[in-house]
């Protein structure tokens, strides 16, 4: 607990809030522009439209944002050359855990605020039908879970490489594969960690090539995919932690 508090203390001037605000601003601008270009027929399915497109925006924006947050939190130790000092006081494993908890809390905060903002957007645009509280909540949770899996990967990279270019290039790759995975078949999405944003989506879409009409419907992600997500996360956690603990400082 003390270590976790220290993590927040270390990051107090690292403009984490600014990074999160930028992420939220991009998502809001994107969705704002998108929603103003929709016709009335599409807006009839407002909530589903919103959640469907948020999934796409997530897959593009979140991988690199998560990489940035992880890098901000880990870079300072490399920069200040603090490993020797820290690891003489606490076991490396606990340090790793504290950093991971920091990421989990920051991401949870970010995504909760995001959910609140888009609820306001939905109500403001007067989307028909009741507010889908359950799907919105689950969607936020799934976004958080996938982001945490990616965070585990990024934290491992940011801790292992002193030069943050490696972690950031991985983040860019993630953003890129995230958006491209929307075009992939499901089995290929399962093979890459950033595909889970699209794979665990709560809204599906039918598109009729003849009329160009789109129809959205609610769906449930498969339990097996959620299990696979946990496997990926465990893999990244184990690998990242082992590498970090065994690393010579």
């Amino acid at each position, binding site marked *: 607990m003390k270590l976790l508090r220290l993590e927040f203390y270390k990051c107090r001037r*690292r403009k984490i809030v600014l990074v999160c605000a930028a992420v939220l601003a*991009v998502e809001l601008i*994107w969705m704002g522009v998108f929603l103003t270009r929709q016709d009335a027929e599409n807006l009839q399915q407002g909530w589903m439209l919103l959640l469907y497109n948020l999934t796409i925006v997530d897959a593009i924006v979140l991988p690199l944002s998560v990489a*940035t947050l992880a890098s*901000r939190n880990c*870079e300072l130790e490399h920069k200040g050359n603090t490993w020797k000092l820290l690891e003489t006081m606490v076991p490396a494993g606990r340090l790793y855990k504290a950093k991971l908890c920091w990421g989990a809390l920051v991401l949870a905060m970010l995504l909760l605020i995001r959910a609140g903002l888009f609820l306001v957007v939905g109500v403001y645009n007067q989307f028909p039908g009741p507010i889908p509280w359950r799907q919105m909540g689950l969607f936020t949770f799934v976004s958080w879970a996938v982001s945490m899996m990616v965070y585990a990967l990024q934290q491992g990279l940011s801790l292992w490489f002193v030069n943050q*270019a490696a972690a950031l290039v991985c983040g860019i790759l993630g*953003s890129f594969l995230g958006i491209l995975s929307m075009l992939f078949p499901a089995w290929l999405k399962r093979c890459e960690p950033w595909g889970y944003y699209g794979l665990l989506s709560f809204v599906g879409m039918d598109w009729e090539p003849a009329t160009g009409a789109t129809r959205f419907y609610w769906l449930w992600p498969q339990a097996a995919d959620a299990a696979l997500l946990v496997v990926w996360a465990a893999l990244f956690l184990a690998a990242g932690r082992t590498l970090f603990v065994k690393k010579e400082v």
Partner: protein
Amino acid sequence: MLLRCLKAEIQKCRCSPVWLAFLVLPIIPSVLGTGNYLANLEVLDNGWYSLWSQHTLFSSTFFLPALLGVFCAWQWRLEHWDHNWNSFLTAPVPVGCLYGAKLILAAGISLLAQVCIGALFLLSGKIAGISAPVPPELPQWLLFGALGGISVCAVQLFFSLVIRAFAPPVTIGLIGGILGLLVTAQGLGYAFPYSLLCLGMRANNPQMKLQMLPFFFSALIYTAVFAILAVGYLRRWDAAAE
């Protein structure tokens, strides 16, 4: 003087694997683009031109600005670390030359990225079995893509100079790319530096049209303005000890 600075900059990257990202990462969009092209042959019936549209679909908006951002951030990272500012700013050369060398190197990398994209494009066209002759405009697309890339580099170099950390400027690069897409969709692409990259490469542009004059003008203005800003910043600002 500029040449010597450039030599020094090249020496700084001598053993760094950063250029590898520009050689390896374009392979992914080309493989996926070719796959997508082959899967949708009935819609994409325009041979090389359709293949180009698939190759540049996302790479020019999400991928390249952020990747160029990594290179620019990496260039300044060298100076931000290990008290390098002291020796950098006391070198007996004008700061304009120091900055110019970095910009030229970034421009070279932008060109290298385009050459890789072009080579991969030709290769995947052959593999996909397109029998038509290679479009004669290809060098032009790549060259204009590189030119657009230079304005992105100028902007990114400025951000990486001012923000003394690695990750935020790269994120700005991605955000710039996304905003570039939105701005281009609104028809204001020539007024935004990050849009110049996809405009130059004719991405999402079925007619492959480009208005030369506004493009050149905008690329020149943005490169010049951000270069002046950066050099001005270097002149005024004192090396802060890390």
